[in-house]
């Protein structure tokens, strides 16, 4: 039992954090919004050169064989920075599932995505609007019974408007030359649902921390009644409540990631737990952060909403709090052995 990170894990986390601090600023995110091109090919290229994009592919496939815990730590930082590029999606939902995709689909992906360096979008009933299709080389589409792959040139698609301008989402009008398979669909579908929940949980915890940090800085700076508003207990307590929520959501993310890395049969419960806790933390972070900013929090000018909008999307996609609650309850009520002091690890 050792619930702390290795030096390697911390180094990867620090490396991506330092890259994103420089390269993924609020200014650069807003430039993407204005140009209606939030997928920045230069930043994608830099992330590729940093080894992030294919980090979790096996070494034989050109990657670093990175485990899910390290990946989750890095994704937390992508949330913190509000990174628009779908790096979390590509690593957690494509690379991490490569061994599980049916052969026909895996071959099609491998042929086209150049060892994880070209982007492939995903559509799934839990997140039905694929991201950045224009910038992709293809689409993996899940419906209720099978998995499909479609090359970008075989689709007719159009952009639809998202409440988060950093997330360019699309609908697919028609497709041809589709490769379909229902082989081991149930297993594959569980695997992607669990990873979707965990990925959004990790992003949310980063986003919640960013909102808390922005709010703490704002209330230290803003004066009313002749002193910083952060000296008033009503304001302090609001932000302290957010800090409490974040503190107790984080370890749920790391545990769920560890469960995936160990193929723990309870990984579905653990991923649902992570998303449940992180959704609640992020929800309170949104509410209390905007309140701490006062009217400024309700403006387009203040950077807070860059992160709040992404948090709203991440709460909604890949199973919201209500869906996760359902998953947890079904597990708990079907076998009381799942719960209690002896079943945490």
């Amino acid at each position, binding site marked *: *039992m*050792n*619930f*702390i*990170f*290795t030096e390697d*894990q911390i180094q990867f986390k620090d490396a991506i954090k330092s890259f994103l601090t420089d390269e993924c600023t609020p200014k650069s995110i807003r430039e993407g919004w204005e140009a209606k091109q939030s997928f920045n090919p230069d930043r994608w290229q830099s992330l590729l050169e940093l080894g992030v994009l294919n980090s979790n592919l096996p070494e034989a496939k050109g990657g670093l064989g990175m485990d899910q*815990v390290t990946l989750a730590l890095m994704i937390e930082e992508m949330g913190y920075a509000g990174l628009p590029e779908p790096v979390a999606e590509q690593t957690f939902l494509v690379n991490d599932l490569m061994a599980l995709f049916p052969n026909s689909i895996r071959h099609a992906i491998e042929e086209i995505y150049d060892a994880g360096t070209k982007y492939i979008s995903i559509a799934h009933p839990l997140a039905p609007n694929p991201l950045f299709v224009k910038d992709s080389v293809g689409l993996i589409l899940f419906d209720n019974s099978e998995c499909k792959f479609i090359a970008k040139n075989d689709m007719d698609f159009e952009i639809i408007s998202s409440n988060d301008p950093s997330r360019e989402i699309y609908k697919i009008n028609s497709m041809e030359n589709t490769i379909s398979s229902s082989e081991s669909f149930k297993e594959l579908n569980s695997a992607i649902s669990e990873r979707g929940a965990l990925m959004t949980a990790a992003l949310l915890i980063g986003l919640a921390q960013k909102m*808390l940090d922005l709010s*703490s800085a704002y*209330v*230290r700076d803003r004066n009313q009644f002749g*002193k*910083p508003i*952060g*000296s008033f*207990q009503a*304001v*302090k*307590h609001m*932000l*302290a*409540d957010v*800090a*409490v929520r974040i*503190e*107790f*959501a*984080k*370890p*749920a993310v*790391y*545990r769920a990631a*560890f469960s995936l890395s*160990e193929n723990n049969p309870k990984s579905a419960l653990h991923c649902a*737990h992570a998303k*449940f*806790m992180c959704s609640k933390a992020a929800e309170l972070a949104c509410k209390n952060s905007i309140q701490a900013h006062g009217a400024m929090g309700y403006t387009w000018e203040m950077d807070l909403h860059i992160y709040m909008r992404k948090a709203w999307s991440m709460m909604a996609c890949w199973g919201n709090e209500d869906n996760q*609650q359902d998953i*947890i*309850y079904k597990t*708990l*009520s079907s076998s*009381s052995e799942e*719960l*209690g*002091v*002896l079943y*945490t*690890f």
Partner: protein
Amino acid sequence: MKINFTNEQNAFRNEVRAWLGSNVPKTPLLSLDTKEGFEQHREWERTLNKGNWSMVTWPKEYGGRGLDLIQWLIFEEEYYRADAPTRVNQNGVFLLGPTLMEFGTHEQKSKFLNAMATGDHIWAQGWSEPGAGSDMAAIRTTAVLEGDHYKINGQKTWSSRATYADWTFGLFRTDLNSERHRGLSFILVPLDLPGITVRPIPQLDGEPGFAEIYFDDVEVPIENLLGGDGEGWKIAMATAGFERGLMLRSPARFQQTAAKLLELYLTKQDHCSPMIQAKIVEAWAQSESYALSIYHTASKMLAGGSIGSESSLGKIFWSELDHMMHQTALKILGASAELSQESQDDAARWIKGFMFSYAGPIYAGTNEIQKNIIAERLLGLPR
């Protein structure tokens, strides 16, 4: 990061389980806040000590087993699983014990830790005063050094367990010209000394769980000073950290409550609305998160880290969780929730716990004070 138990840890768990299985009293003890119940619980402390289970993390020479925090968490999990009696000496073993370990002299450690382990010294807390509650630095009870002893005058209040306990520890003003947190000292006081009057205070549940302690020219030998004269505040902060943090409220307690809540719900769900189901999930999710977080903290401490203001985060989390779980239980119980804790109904246990759960956000530093600490020390907001 590798969060599985080792074979050695599993073997330890089995050893604890086997011992508790054959030693935990088959019928529940009387309440520890009654005279008879207190002595029953003292007897249980003696039994624990015979098995060498008083405090597994203490060095062997002081009655412990020299084990680490992870093994202590395992012990606690088994302890709650076995429904073993509440530790009447929790002020001693969980709060004063670690403080003595850090600040005590060798003589103090041998004397007090061993007596704590055997159940000969049951400890009460002596922090608050009528004018010093959340504002603990306003302490006015004085301890004046006269030769080889301190002469204590003043009053402590809300002293948990003081009604029947043997000793109390707390902060006293040893420098009469000092103000606030300077000039305070941490002193250990036997409650049977001349000049001490203990007045029980009936709690919300009707039992004398805490008391007022009056000191009238009470003479305490200088050997009972813990740490240096005037260093009391620093030492008290360490003790408070233990209290808020993983020592006093190990996660097993809340996980066990969550498990029992689920059990209760599954037998009565036909009478409940979907709102209750949401609360059941929250109870499980939060107690699970608390456990994960504590294992995370324990691992950090084992790797040489220390626990600071972070313990304030946990104190808010567990106390709100505990109250939410008991509120939910009472909703499931329906009209039985109006029965008293003395009733023979299964509801009685929940009702007692429900009342006690109102104390959680108050004791060990109110949650409002914890939020100030979080805001100022962790988020960097101005005082």
